[in-house]
């Protein structure tokens, strides 16, 4: 009766989405980060009146423009994938996903199209103040776009402010503010945007260090490093703080993700935080997860077996029980639809109540093996450590750069310039590792507890997704080569030639 979904179809669709999202994310953080750097430099120009700052701002704007041009519209491919590969998901999320994405699209188009043009074409045509405002508004437009995208993503991690309508088979928004200002969305936004500033600052310092290595543009390079170090240090510290808050939220709304991040199979009270191997910080995991050194942190086995006391005093149910309740919800949905078709309102009412009672476990009805509820532990464990480790390194990096800038010794140490230059890929690795933690950590869910990937996927042939996967791979590689080529050419020319 049923044509079973090919598991390779699911894996190829996931791989394609991951490829597109990770490629898109190569551009976004640099756009957000450079926007702040160039805005600050232009502000210095307007405040001091020194042409030096105008020239400096224009150079970083040029690199911003290259990155913006290559990256623009790459995110749209993700929306194509939703409609083609993830059609059940697209329908099921309804306007919850559509509204933030529509706002993002309109805002991004109008703000960025208007102010980017003024920023690049308006130096001799508008006043200093108007130009400065346009530069900041370009960055603000990109940041607001990021807000709405992250609202949509946060909703998938922690769905709030909606109700499932079994008549339309869609989730309907019942509380816009709960969706738009969900604490998960707020923290995700701050963590993501501020970490993008870190990446932008590392990029500026790395490129400036290249000039110092070549003994070119020393004044420009030192000034750029100084400005970027201030921005980077501030952003890295706030990123660490918001990371701590995010981990606390994850412990409450996605405990399996936290357990996988820590490779914690059997949890308990007063849990230490594993740094690497047997190096552990006593009580730290309990403190991070519960803000109490004696707090209980469930491990993977605890989450699967249930039976432990949760923060709200209730006893956690097992994965098997959740699966049973999920199946009950789906069965009730089927009965509701049949009763509706038959015009039996009484039976429909009973089925709907059963559905609503078990709706929090709806997605578990598609899980055939509880082991599939566990994300890839190795990938999670190491991605998390790479992200946090590099985050700590960047704090030290910016502090050292700032210290040397004030000692006026920045130009002296060539070994430091090499480190700065090679820190650029490290910033990208940290940024991508963060997204791996966020997205691999919520597997197998497209929407946490509501819709797993095997239910969200369209009934397509794996071959068609494989074809587009390789088309993207080629296209993204070509674009990446183009970006790096144009960027390197612009950097070699240097700020004098703006």
């Amino acid at each position, binding site marked *: 009766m049923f044509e*079973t979904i090919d598991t390779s179809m699911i894996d190829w669709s996931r791989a394609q989405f991951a490829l597109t999202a990770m490629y898109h994310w190569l551009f976004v953080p640099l756009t957000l980060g450079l926007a702040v750097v160039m805005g600050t430099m232009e502000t210095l120009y307007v405040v001091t009146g020194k042409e030096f700052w105008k020239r400096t701002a224009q150079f970083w704007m040029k690199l911003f423009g290259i990155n913006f041009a*290559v990256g623009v*519209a790459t995110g749209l491919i993700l929306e194509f994938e939703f409609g083609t590969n993830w059609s059940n998901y697209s329908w099921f999320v309804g306007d919850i996903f559509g509204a933030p994405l529509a706002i993002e699209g309109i805002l991004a188009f109008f703000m960025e199209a208007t102010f980017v043009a003024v920023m690049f074409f308006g130096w001799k045509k508008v006043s200093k103040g108007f130009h400065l405002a346009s530069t900041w508004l370009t960055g603000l437009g990109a940041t607001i776009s990021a807000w709405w995208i992250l609202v949509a993503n946060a909703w998938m991690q922690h769905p709030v402010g909606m109700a499932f309508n079994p008549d339309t088979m869609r989730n309907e928004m019942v509380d816009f503010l709960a969706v738009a200002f969900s604490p998960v969305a707020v923290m995700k936004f701050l963590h993501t945007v501020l970490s993008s500033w870190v990446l932008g600052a590392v990029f500026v310092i790395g490129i400036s260090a290249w000039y110092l290595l070549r003994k070119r543009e020393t004044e420009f390079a030192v000034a750029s490093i100084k400005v970027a170090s201030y921005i980077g240090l501030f952003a890295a510290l706030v990123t660490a703080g918001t990371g701590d808050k995010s981990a606390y939220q994850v412990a409450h709304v996605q405990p399996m993700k936290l357990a996988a991040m820590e490779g914690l199979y059997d949890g308990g009270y007063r849990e230490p935080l594993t740094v690497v191997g047997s190096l552990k910080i006593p009580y730290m995991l309990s403190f991070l997860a519960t803000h109490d050194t004696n707090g209980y942190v469930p491990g993977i086995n605890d989450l699967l077996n249930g039976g432990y006391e949760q923060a709200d005093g209730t006893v956690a149910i097992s994965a098997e029980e959740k699966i049973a309740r999920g199946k009950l919800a789906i069965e009730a949905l089927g009965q509701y*639809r049949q009763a509706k078709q038959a015009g039996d309102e009484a039976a429909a009412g009973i089925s709907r109540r059963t559905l609503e009672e078990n709706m929090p476990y709806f997605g578990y009805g598609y899980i055939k093996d509880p082991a599939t509820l566990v994300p890839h532990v190795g990938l999670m464990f190491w991605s998390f450590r790479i992200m946090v480790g590099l985050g700590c390194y960047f704090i030290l990096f910016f502090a050292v750069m700032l210290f040397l800038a004030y000692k006026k010794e920045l130009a002296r140490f060539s070994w430091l310039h090499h480190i700065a230059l090679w820190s650029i890929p490290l910033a990208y690795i940290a940024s991508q590792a963060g997204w791996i933690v966020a997205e691999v950590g919520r597997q197998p869910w497209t929407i946490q507890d509501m819709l797993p990937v095997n239910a969200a996927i369209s009934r397509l042939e794996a071959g068609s997704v494989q074809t587009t996967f390789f088309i993207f791979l080629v296209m993204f590689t070509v674009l990446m080569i183009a970006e790096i080529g144009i960027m390197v050419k612009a950097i070699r020319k240097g700020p004098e030639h703006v």
Partner: protein
Amino acid sequence: MKKQIITIFQFYRDGFREMTWGRTLWWLILVKLFVIFVILKLFFFPSFLKGKTEQEKQEYVGTELIDRALEESKEIH
């Protein structure tokens, strides 16, 4: 109003004319948009539920979501 539109038009026109390195980027953007919207969207990424009415989409996704759960159960047994 007409004067403002002309001023805005001239602003963009002059901006594009005076571009140096930006020309390459605009070509890159145009080629990319063509590939994304014309080739990829039309030939490789049609909407899976395209051609169905709202009612049919509800019906289709509803049946899919119920059947998928049954498929999983069937595979276990």
